[in-house]
């Protein structure tokens, strides 16, 4: 059953292990098979007396890696190791050459890019010029199988550290969104191998139990039953309220969905024509055959391709091409493939289409059997030509009775508090989506806590998203307060955080009486300003020093009283 190489690795592993170890490996493997908690046997592993130093660094965007790393650090201490825990943006890069044991927990963002906080570290280790010969390391990669570049960053860090001469004492482990069990298992391995002196396994051996992790996400099909642009004529924007009929979708307010956009048919046909490939020609993709036109329209990314891909393309067509993001069509026009066969090679290197995430704007209790979205058409200019984002344009172009496929992206960090808690929601623009879900849910379930909404857009008359619903919630008392900022209705621009400043004392009263604060929508500059404003409110109205305000704010985050869903 196993191929020769795996066979060999396994027997090596088995032979090199005593009984206890075999017992543990047994439990460990079955844990993976049954996706259950890993046996804690490892905790009782006898550790040798001289405490070892380990450095545990994490690169996080939305906090998962931090959470994991912190738990693991605690566990390490229990196993009396001396632990240095640091976020990669705090970590002094020059220290790295001195590390004996370096363990990296890092997630992947964007389409296969490192979290912002890890960028410096990422660049540093790619800049070679130094060796890590006496460093032992292992990487825990957080990711999401619904993305084509699954755990890309983790992989790159893992390879790079090895290149620099560090010894991999435990193979990289790639985690899907339910990362806890894998993280546990990985760290148990780490603890184990730390206790083996000297390093048991020669570096370079990879055991990847879940190397090609399959997406464990359920794919739903939704039928468009409602589709309307919420802006009135004369607005500069397009934001689509989309209602999808989809039964038994398992989600909670705060969750998002992922959608894989379709490439425009016209573009696909253009490409097929240009390359002379026959559109019903079959080609392989993720262990299955698909027609070329299916691949190009539904499965592969063909616009704004990553530099990585450009590189691969150029080596296929044997022409040198500047490494800048480009559309497949332009590539084919400027640097043609020599024939259909060569184009098939290109198909093999094209990345799978990334899903785009959209916050769910409906609530399970209020909108039974439906998923609602609030999708703003992403418009941008590329040298004078205005273009539209692929997925938002695709969703905006849907019409009633069409169907789309999607999966649910759980967001455990963005949940309504207990029904009796007060909630302060800051959601300008499409940020309103999460709060339409929150408020509908609290309305439908009769939650007693108070609700305060901050919303902002450009113009009152044309851009007041969900105005009539918000009015109804206010009149029926579900919404206790609504604060609005329409930036372009007066000479000087006014934004939600300006309104927050005006209401600072009241906001602080809410915070002091235990209110939960949520921010949804644009990451920058919106959420940054909002966060700064909250800090200054704590300073001014809470009469705290800068430091204490920060502490207070951190405290709120720890207690889950400040959460954001920003992008």
């Amino acid at each position, binding site marked *: 059953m196993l191929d020769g190489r795996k066979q060999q690795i396994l027997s090596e592993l088995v032979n090199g292990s005593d009984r206890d170890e075999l017992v543990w490996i047994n439990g460990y493997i079955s844990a993976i098979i049954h996706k259950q908690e890993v046996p804690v046997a490892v905790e009782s592993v006898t550790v040798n007396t001289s405490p070892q130093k380990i450095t545990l660094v994490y690169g996080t965007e939305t906090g998962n890696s931090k959470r994991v790393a912190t738990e693991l650090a605690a566990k390490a201490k229990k196993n009396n190791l001396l632990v240095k825990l640091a976020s990669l943006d705090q970590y002094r890069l020059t220290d790295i050459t001195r590390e004996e044991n370096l363990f990296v927990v890092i997630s992947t963002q964007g389409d296969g890019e490192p979290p912002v906080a890890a960028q410096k570290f990422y660049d540093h280790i790619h800049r070679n010029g130094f060796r890590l010969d006496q460093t032992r390391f292992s990487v825990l990669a957080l990711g999401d199988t619904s993305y084509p570049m699954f755990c890309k960053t983790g992989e790159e860090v893992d390879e790079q550290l090895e290149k620099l001469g560090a010894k991999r004492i435990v193979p990289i482990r790639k985690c899907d969104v339910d990362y806890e069990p894998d993280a546990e298992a990985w760290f148990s391995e780490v603890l184990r191998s730390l206790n083996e002196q000297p390093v048991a396994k020669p570096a370079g051996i990879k055991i990847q139990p879940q190397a090609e992790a399959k997406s464990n996400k359920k794919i739903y099909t939704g039928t468009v039953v409602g589709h309307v642009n919420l802006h009135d004529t004369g607005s500069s924007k397009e934001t689509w309220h989309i209602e999808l009929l989809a039964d038994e979708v398992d989600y909670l307010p705060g969750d998002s969905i992922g959608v894989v956009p379709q490439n425009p048919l016209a573009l696909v046909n253009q490409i097929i024509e240009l390359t002379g490939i026959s559109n019903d020609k079959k080609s392989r993709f993720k262990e299955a055959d698909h027609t070329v036109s299916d691949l190009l329209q539904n499965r592969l990314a063909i616009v704004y391709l990553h530099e990585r891909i450009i590189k691969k393309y150029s080596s296929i067509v044997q022409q040198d091409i500047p490494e800048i993001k480009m559309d497949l069509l332009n590539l084919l026009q400027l640097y043609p493939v020599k024939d259909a066969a060569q184009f098939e090679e290109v198909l093999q290197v094209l990345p799978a289409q990334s899903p785009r995430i959209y916050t769910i704007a409906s609530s399970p209790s209020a909108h039974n059997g439906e998923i609602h979205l609030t999708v703003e058409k992403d418009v941008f200019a590329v040298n004078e030509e205005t273009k539209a984002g692929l997925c938002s344009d695709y969703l905006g172009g849907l019409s009633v009775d069409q169907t789309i496929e999607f999966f649910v992206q759980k967001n455990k960090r963005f949940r309504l508090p207990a029904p009796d808690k007060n909630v302060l929601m800051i959601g300008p623009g499409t940020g309103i989506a999460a709060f339409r879900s929150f408020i509908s849910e609290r309305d439908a379930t009769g939650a007693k806590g108070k609700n305060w909404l901050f919303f902002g857009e450009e113009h009152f008359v044309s851009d007041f*998203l969900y105005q009539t619903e918000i009015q109804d919630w206010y009149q029926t008392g579900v919404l206790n307060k609504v604060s609005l900022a329409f930036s372009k209705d007066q000479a000087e621009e006014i934004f939600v955080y300006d309104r927050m400043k005006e209401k600072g004392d009241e906001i602080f009263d809410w915070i002091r009486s235990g209110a939960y604060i949520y921010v949804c929508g644009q990451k920058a500059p919106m959420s940054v300003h909002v966060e700064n404003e909250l800090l200054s409110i704590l300073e001014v109205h809470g009469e705290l020093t800068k430091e204490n305000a920060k502490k207070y704010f951190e405290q709120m985050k720890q207690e889950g009283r400040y959460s954001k869903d920003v992008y």
Partner: protein
Amino acid sequence: MSDKSAIEKIKEASVHLRGTLKESLKDELTGAIREDDQAVIKFHGMYQQDDRDRREERAEKKLERLYSFMIRLRLPGGFLTPEQWIAVYDIAGEHSTGVIKITSRQTLQLHGIIKSDIKPTIKAFSEAKLDSIATCGDINRNVLCSSHPKQSPIHEEVFGYADKISQLLMPKTKAYYEIWLDEEILVDKKEEEDPLYQERYLPRKFKIAIAIPPNNDVDVFANDIGLIAVIENDVLKGFNIAIGGGLSSTHGNPETYPRLATVIGFADSEEKTLKAVYEIATIQRDYGNRADRKLARLKYTLDKYGVEWFVKELETRTGFSLEPAKEFVFNSRKDFFGWDTNADGLFYYTAFVENGRILDDQNTKLKSALLAIAKTGKANFRFTCNQNVIISDVLPGAKDAIDDILTEYGINGHTENTSVIRKNSMACVAFPTCPLALAEAQRYLPSLIDKIELLLGKYSLSEEEIIIRMTGCPNGCARSYAAEIGFVGTAYGKYNMHIGGDRIGERLNKIYKENIGEEEILQSLDGLFNIYSSQKQTSETFGDFSLRQKWVTI
């Protein structure tokens, strides 16, 4: 039915027309104001409206109705200085749809002012010494006066009465200044005590017009009080007083009907005239129906208690009795277009404004023309009850300059080339702003006239000064009941066709055909014009002929 309509309660609770307007203005969630305040704000000369063309679409978009406000200026006798015209022009551009509407009661309206722009608008008006106090609501409205300086050498003297009466019947409340102009809150409430309106104001709107025979351009008999100037060899002797005019009716409510005012006598001095006017208002205040607004106008009070009783009551209240009415003769109800001079040799030019809508279109740039004229500072502006404008009080030396502007912007060309029938026609606002509209009016009449012109041409009747008026509902804002041919909207695209009214506004028309669309309208007119052209006696008006033919019976 309770003894007081809802509006009555709102008025009394409003603390002299303040209501909760200030709170309504603060509410960021909506472009509307509170229900009760919508009644109160009328007394300040404004109406909450919404664009009815956009209702369905906005509802789908989860946006509330496109609310905005219409503001109506108080212009006794319909007079503006050039400086004031420039102000109106700027305000319209900044805060409204840009179209300046001349109303059938010779004042101006701006539409589409959003809630947050109301205060800036009123402030700007007030800087130009203009206000909108009491141009709507259950109170005396804008006072009309024949606008044609040519009418009489003492036109100015008569004209002066419009302002006097307007002042006499002004409410005492300072709410307007407090709410819109941020003047500090009145402490001594005594200053606001209002012997005329008290806390309840009138049961219904109250309208006054002054006519200078022989032209009845103001439609004097359509008003609650009509004053007919009696002038003997260029001396103002006094006024015949007519009361109980009102045109509105309600479809399917036989208790409601249009009525022309009844002449009850003559007052021979300013003092008596003003006193009589004042006390007629107090009688209506005390005896008008406050339970059913459909029956609340003075005309119903008069018919309920009888003219005799009313005149007696008036005598006891004024302490004098009116003299028997003096002879008077009306022979027209129109505007005299083009250049003319008044007694003092001042020139004035009457320009045709279709349905009173002042704007720039391809060939006639009326809005720009009037601005250019205003900027010369050499002419005043007067508005007529037929929704036209008179560029007036032009010194002989300035006439050519003004005329050049009129030519440059294609105004006099437009006025001269417009057919007689179109010049004598009038339509109300109706869609999209009027909430009561059942059918189109000012947006539709022009195209209907195009077709009627052809019919008239066909029977060589093009020079007949037939008066055609259209309203989008039975309220009769363009006085469609007082027309030779009246169209009263019944449903979208459908109208009751009325004929038989006279040319001078002393006889109302009657329904000839009910609820008909354009095709049937044109068919009917074709038939009628055919007979009219062949059988009319010389100088027999279409209205009189319709009656003689018994097409309708009065």
